[in-house]
């Protein structure tokens, strides 16, 4: 899976999520993903390589967005979440409904 190819297909959007997602930054995060859902891309890839922090506030919004995108027939994929975030995705079961991929290129 290569990000350049993906962007070329035109059906996949890629969003880079950076910094910290918590109770303060959550609305900005929600808005940026909702914008992607509106584009009706069939796949939305969240590049989490530079996402340093996320907690239950982020998990809740991920589930919410995934439900919305599913209604639209879209998939959300998280790419390269760091170990600390992966741990929470697994603990909360979010990894059962959102696909998580590790891109070896990163």
């Amino acid at each position, binding site marked *: 899976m290569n990000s350049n190819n993906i962007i070329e297909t035109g059906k996949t959007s890629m969003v880079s999520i950076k910094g*910290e997602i*918590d*109770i*303060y930054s959550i609305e900005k995060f929600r808005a940026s993903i909702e914008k992607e859902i509106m584009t009706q891309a069939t796949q939305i890839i969240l590049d989490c390589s530079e996402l340093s*922090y996320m*907690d*239950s*506030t982020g*998990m*809740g919004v991920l*589930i*919410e967005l*995934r439900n919305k995108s599913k209604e639209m027939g879209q998939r959300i994929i998280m790419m390269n979440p760091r*170990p*600390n975030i*992966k*741990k*929470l995705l697994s*603990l*909360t*079961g*979010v990894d*059962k*409904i*959102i696909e998580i991929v590790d891109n070896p290129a990163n």
Partner: protein
Amino acid sequence: MDSIKLTLPTKPEYVSLARLTIASVANNMGFSIGDVEDLKVAVSEACTNALNHSKNPDTTYDLTYIVENQKLVFTVTDRGIGFEPEEVAMPDLNGKQLGGFGIFIIKSLMDRVEIISERGSGTSITMVKNLSTTHEV
């Protein structure tokens, strides 16, 4: 046994200060990178609850970090409405539930958790992380 106290405005933009300070204290104590991340999550979850649920009438709430020999003991205290900790259900982990993860995550990541809450006078959640714990991500 050193004790650090932090009083923060009851506003989302200051929760990062709780993370920043606990990370610094935990780093100096020698906690692993993974444990420091877990401590940041635990303190943030407790602060987030104080902001989301306590209806804290005060403009501030309090954090205390106590550096003990082989553990970090920290408390988040609000002066809000309180709740019954025993009545909080374990969340469904099937991806259907949108919330209810906070206390579950705290309990999963920390070695000991004690919630003292009184209706009308507030909540105090004390979390303990042992230095020796070596379960790593």
